[in-house]
């Protein structure tokens, strides 16, 4: 349902703004030739007929032809996707590793100075735009200190030998290049997660079953890390699913700052060079990713939450 609407939006953008003939035949064609071409491509058909054709083609994986790259959009996106995926993985890793302990700690000891510092920094964190974090990181670590590279993906390895998945995860240089972009992408979400985990954990700690666990004489570690933690995790997982979508939006910014050759970079390139079919393809793919991610999160949620597993649906 969501997919169809987005495809519709994307398609109407394309049909109103885009000129599908230009990428096919170039700039210099006579109006008669154009007209013939348009007829052949079915561009004179009613809007919805065209739309359904578009959806049909999209289902087969055909998203049109990119004007800049002169190949199919699907290919272009597939080539750029690994960079974005690796960036998101890097950022997600940082978020998980940092936000879980900090969130739990601030929930358990809300009055300690460290917790107050963390909360203060998290307010500061949400106030710094992600691109500014990126710029400051570049200035500090790349320009001033010269420790880490400031742009590009560095050395990559062709993972499956077919030229699509060029991975930077397996070379030191590639990993070095990943550090700053991941940190800056993580920086915008990190405060959110710390706060979320903190407030969920605090709520859970107030519940009857946690009080009962104390009455059972269990050790604090077991109560916090087993009983409270799993219940804290449930809502966090759901939000994580939603936020991955937002992370996609922020990859556009991060990739611009770090010249990271991913989908966001490609998207902006498409915008600046008026490659509408590529723009449209990006939209459809991102929507697709949202749906997939949400489904995966739902399944995972069902996996850790017994109440959902039994009834089958939410």
């Amino acid at each position, binding site marked *: 349902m969501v997919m169809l609407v987005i495809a519709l939006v994307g398609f109407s953008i394309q049909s109103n703004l885009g000129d599908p003939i230009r990428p096919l035949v170039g700039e210099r064609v006579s109006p008669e030739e154009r007209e013939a071409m348009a007829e052949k491509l079915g561009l004179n058909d009613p809007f919805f007929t065209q739309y359904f054709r578009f959806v049909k083609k999209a289902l087969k994986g055909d998203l049109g032809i990119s004007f800049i790259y002169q190949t199919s959009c699907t290919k272009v996106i597939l080539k750029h996707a690994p960079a974005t995926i690796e960036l998101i993985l890097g950022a997600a890793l940082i978020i998980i590793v940092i936000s879980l302990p900090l969130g739990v700690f601030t929930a358990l000891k809300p009055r300690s100075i460290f917790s107050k510092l963390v909360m203060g920094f998290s307010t500061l964190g949400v106030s710094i735009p992600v691109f500014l974090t990126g710029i400051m990181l570049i200035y500090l670590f790349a320009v001033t200190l010269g420790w880490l590279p400031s742009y590009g993906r560095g050395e990559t390895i062709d993972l499956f030998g077919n030229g699509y998945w060029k991975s930077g995860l397996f070379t030191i240089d590639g990993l070095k290049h990943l550090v700053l972009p991941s940190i800056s992408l993580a920086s915008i979400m990190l405060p959110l997660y710390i706060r979320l985990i903190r407030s969920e954990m605090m709520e859970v700690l107030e*519940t*009857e*079953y*946690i*009080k*009962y*666990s*104390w*009455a*059972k*004489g*269990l*050790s604090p570690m*077991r109560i916090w890390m*087993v*009983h409270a933690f*799993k*219940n804290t995790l*449930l809502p966090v997982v759901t939000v994580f699913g939603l936020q991955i979508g937002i992370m996609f939006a922020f990859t556009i910014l991060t990739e611009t700052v770090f010249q990271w050759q991913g989908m966001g970079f490609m998207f902006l390139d498409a915008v600046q060079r008026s490659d509408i079919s590529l723009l449209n393809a990006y939209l459809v793919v991102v929507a697709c990713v949202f749906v997939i991610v949400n489904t995966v999160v739902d399944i995972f949620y069902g996996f*850790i*939450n*017994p*109440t959902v597993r*039994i009834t089958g649906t939410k």
Partner: protein
Amino acid sequence: MSHLLNVEDLEVKFALRFGDITAIDGISFSLDKGEKLGLVGESGAGKSVTGFSIINLISKPGFISKGRITFEGNEISAYSDSKMRQIRGDRISMIFQDPMMTLNPVFTIGMQMTEVLMAHRKMSKGQARKIALEKLKKVYIPSPEKRLAQYPHELSGGMRQRIIIAISLLTDPAIIIADEPTTALDVTIQAEIMDLLQELCESDNMALILITHDLGVVSQVTEKIAVMYAGKIIEYGPTDQIVKHPVHPYTEGLIKSIPGTVIKPGEDLVQIPGMMPTLTNIPQGCAFNPRCYLKEDICTTATPELKQKNGAMAACHMK
């Protein structure tokens, strides 16, 4: 002579922004091996806080400000947290009010049972499971093996409360503190659960502290009663004596509001007028005086002490 549990002059305060308020105001009672005590009162009288303060688990910002609690001859009110933890759930276990909220929704019954044994006894998971099964049978849970693998939400409220009772039996405790164990259940199941508790305490010679607002239940189950009002015990003694010959006008009122006890069929039930005061504005003198039909001047100036009367203790100037 030493009691199993002795509570002396217990005072519990809650630290609030505008100062401390007293929730429990110097109460004393004792409990012997296998004895069953009923703590009775309206909500807000301090019954639950009393129950929780025995195992030192009063929720923040409450704290014990005065008094001594001794258990098996040791002053447990002076225990450190980790020492107290060895008592909680082992020698003294607790049953909570709402079985729907008491079990952790994301773990199996089996896990929530065995963890208690593994925390208090050095034993393997297999041994713990065996004991868990044995206790589940004891509380008459059908097909106990199956239950161990189930999650709380798959069971009914009555079933869950049985499981919680089974959990409290796991370590063969000396005392079970049951905080309104039947309030959240259907009326038909209430009686079953009460009978079960009574039966288990008698067969295993466990002491029971039954916290409830229902004097009717207490009078059928326990040997001793302590009636609480606004953080104080106002009447304390053998159940029979108190139910048949209540001294304090409040107790009298409570009893008269239960059908089929002192009041004979055909007579009207009596209602105590007014409401219990909130802890922030407890009346001067006897806290019950605004609602009392025997009220005299002294009731508004001096706080009555518990004193011997008809084989029980009561705190009333007029009797």
